[in-house]
């Protein structure tokens, strides 16, 4: 192909910036980002934590669920600026080790609770937050369905995810 003169391309937009300092998966992070950057984009593209997925950007699908100050929340409905000072946890921090999955992840594998895997990190983060919440955990079928009800999955039909939550209860002694 004929070589042409390289176009002049700006490095970045002219959006006003804001400095945000927060903790992500236990590490302190400071970045200057656009005031309008969503936390989901911040985690994925500024920090390279692409395990947090983006499925709808209006808070319905739950793919982008992370922990914000210990509770599950939508990173697509949170500005990076709002997370200034917050403690954020993402799917990348969940597995027990490089070789051992977290019991919830292990249960998903055993129960075939994922197919394409796109919704899975958000599902896991949501379930994990409920497992870590103080107080009783309702692992009845109805309780599990309610627990999962903020996360869409288009592949599995949910039944195996429900089984996986039950199994995770067994693996963590929460039955």
């Amino acid at each position, binding site marked *: *192909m004929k*070589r042409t003169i*390289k*176009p002049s*391309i*700006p*490095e*970045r*937009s*002219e*959006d006003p910036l804001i400095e945000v300092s927060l903790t992500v998966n236990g590490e302190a992070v400071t970045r200057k980002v*656009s005031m309008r950057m969503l936390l989901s984009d911040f985690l*994925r593209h500024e920090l*390279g934590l*692409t*395990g*947090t*997925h*983006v*499925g*709808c*950007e*209006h808070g*319905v*699908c739950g*793919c982008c669920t992370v922990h914000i100050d210990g509770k599950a929340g939508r990173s697509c409905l949170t500005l990076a600026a709002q997370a200034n000072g917050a403690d954020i946890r*993402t*799917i990348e921090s*969940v*597995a027990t080790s490089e070789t051992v*999955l977290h019991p919830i*992840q292990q249960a*998903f*594998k*055993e129960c*075939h609770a*994922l*197919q*394409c*895997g*796109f*919704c*899975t*990190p958000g599902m*896991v983060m949501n379930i994990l937050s409920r497992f870590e919440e103080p107080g009783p955990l309702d692992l009845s*079928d109805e309780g*599990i*369905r309610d627990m*999962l*009800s903020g*996360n*869409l*999955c*288009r592949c*599995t*039909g*949910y*039944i195996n*995810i*429900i089984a996986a939550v039950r199994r995770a209860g067994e693996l963590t002694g929460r039955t």
Partner: protein
Amino acid sequence: MSTRSFGARVERNVDPKLLRGEGAFIDDIPLANVLHTAFLRSPHARARIKSIDVRAAKQHPGVVAVYTCDDIGVLDMAMPLLIPHPCMKNPQTQRPLARDEVHYVGQTIAMVVAVDRYTAEDGAGLIEVEYEPLPVEMDMEKALAPGAPLVHEKAPGNLAAHFVQVCGKPDDAFARAEHIVKIRVQVDRSTAAPMECRAIAARWDAVSGELTVWDGTQAPISVRGGLASIFALDEDKVRVIAPDVGGGFGQKVLFFYPDELLVPMAAMQLGRPVKYIEDRRENFLGSSQERTQIHEIELAALKTGEVIGLRDSFLHDTGAYIPYGIAVAQVASTSIAGPYRIPNIWVEFKAVYTPTVQVTPYRGCGRPQACFAVERAMDQLAEELGLDRFEIRKRNFIGVDQFPYEREGLLFADGLKVTLDSGQYAKALGMAADALGASSFAADQAAARAEGKYLGLGLACYVEGTGLGPYEGGHVRIHPITGKVYVNTGLSTQGQGHDTVFAQIVSDQLGVKPEDVIVVEGDTKAFDWGVATFASRAAVVSGNAIHKTAITVRKKTITAAANMLEVAEDEVELRDGAAWVIGSNRFVPLAAVATASNPLRYAFNEAAQAATQFAPASKHDGPPLGEGTAPGLEATDYYSPPASTWAYGVHAAIVEVDPGTCAVKIRKYICIHDCGNMINPMIVEGQVMGGIAQGIGGALYERLDYQPDGNLANASFMDFLMPYATEIPDVKILHLETPSPLNPLGVKGVGEAGCIAVGAVVASGVEDALKQLGPMKFRHVPLTPTMISDALESVGH
């Protein structure tokens, strides 16, 4: 390996990566200096474009380029018609960027490239377009009438295709019928809504002249062919990679979407990687949809309930374009007789242009509509003849001894005569009745009624032609260093577990653990002969190709190992990652066999020493690599199915309807399913269950709400009601395994199965529940609370 991997519930190889958030979906792939795109889309269903002013957009800080149809060179064209068919009239396909006129809300008019997506969207918002809106007709029946507004001036009457198929002598059958039923049914439009929207990224390497495209597609090889052709590049200079793809369900098998051409073009022009990550709103507006059909179906029966003839005339909404040909309507028309003998069939369809995004296959591909039509008609016939709904079906099933059962005159989507290859339909029906508790249902229903509850029994049967050709390939190689087995095929995966089921097939032939079989697909640099993932065909077509290939590699391995072990070939068995002398503890690892099969000059590690030219094992007469042989333990082979293989199933449910709130609750759901031999029942059940959930969506929730002006009122997950876990009941899935006689593995496809019957089951159940309150018919899905309310009102309840 002592136990067979085929048929086992093997956990998936791919899972740990996905569970840890280490998947590589397209927007996860780091591309240095990547630029982002956004599209300006039409707000009108039909309009003339009088002018486009991009000046403000171009001047917006951070915008790199703005393209309209005037700026895209060879891409200013009608995109390919993928599946031509002689019955099509004036087939229309979309242009990447609209020229002069638009045909649906959401059609791409301009593309903005910018430093980030936020800025690209700003730029798109700054483009000023002057439109002259044109009238539209959204109702298919009215759109066919003379004088209706046209979607395309070149397509009179909005008729995209008209096709009639005849099997047997339907007119004779209707003439001698003792009873005829005729009903009208409708299925509304839905969308696949994969959790990952479509996505594409492209990088142009000006030094090597190579274009690399990451495309969330079901058809990487086919996309590669199209890109090479359109951009006039050699095929080996175009690499298409479909990495992890977050669901497809047919929506990602269409090509080209405009972005799939424009993003590579921009990458080439700008010398920077460019990506387009479709957002959810765009997925609703611009990516393919399916389902709307209106059937007028008639059954000609004898008093015994035997159906001797079927006539079906249906309208099929193809949207504004018909790039995928008549595939959806053709599958519907050839599936219309279901699992029933019905020897005389007349089926006609008209494909109608509507000013909406194009219709191409979505999981099910016309089968849910055909099933809905024939099953609702069977229920009606049963009612009119006073027969039980199970009984009438039993009387019409193709018997186990009647296979192969041909429907002369009906050509399936592979262009071949419909030939159902095997099945045990009556047995499946019996299993469904037992699992549901059908025999005690009347008593349960009466007891519930006494408590003020309305229970109904729903039932439907379906067949599914699967495993279409033309062919797929397999490549299998035993890695000389690790002994792991590499497998390639030309498909891409969107979550179906290819990496595990193909590993299981190879595992059995080569005696290795499934986790030691690494399946690499979705990359034209890994394997580039093949077609795509669609039509429930991966296990059948690629599965058998890989099976054949693995057998060849097995033979090569045994020959080489027998030579090394100095025994006859029939004294060698492959298990536990090694070749063993049967009945002894003498073995040689597969890695060593593979290494020895590859004559080496350099001993790059200890194992390699055995294959170098001065090693004792390398003694040979003649050249190190014998004439006509190839190095390593490797083979490539292909499988081309003689015809489609037909899976089937029976679904039955008990539903409860609340006449106060019009809520429908599925209390029990049974699925009897037969896809031939199952490679991995866990994955089969996952596929079936996922399909059933989508079916429940289509039965009760999911309907694209097009307004009379062509705008889509519910282009979001807030308003398009995909079921959550709270809407999906427990489902009992039971299997039958009737092998397909058509392929070596005896397998049939399963991908689409689950969704097909659900609409018919739910409607049948709701009708049964409410019949206690009056004669109400439910022949339109999704079945909404408003429909139930209207029906109740019509009987004065």
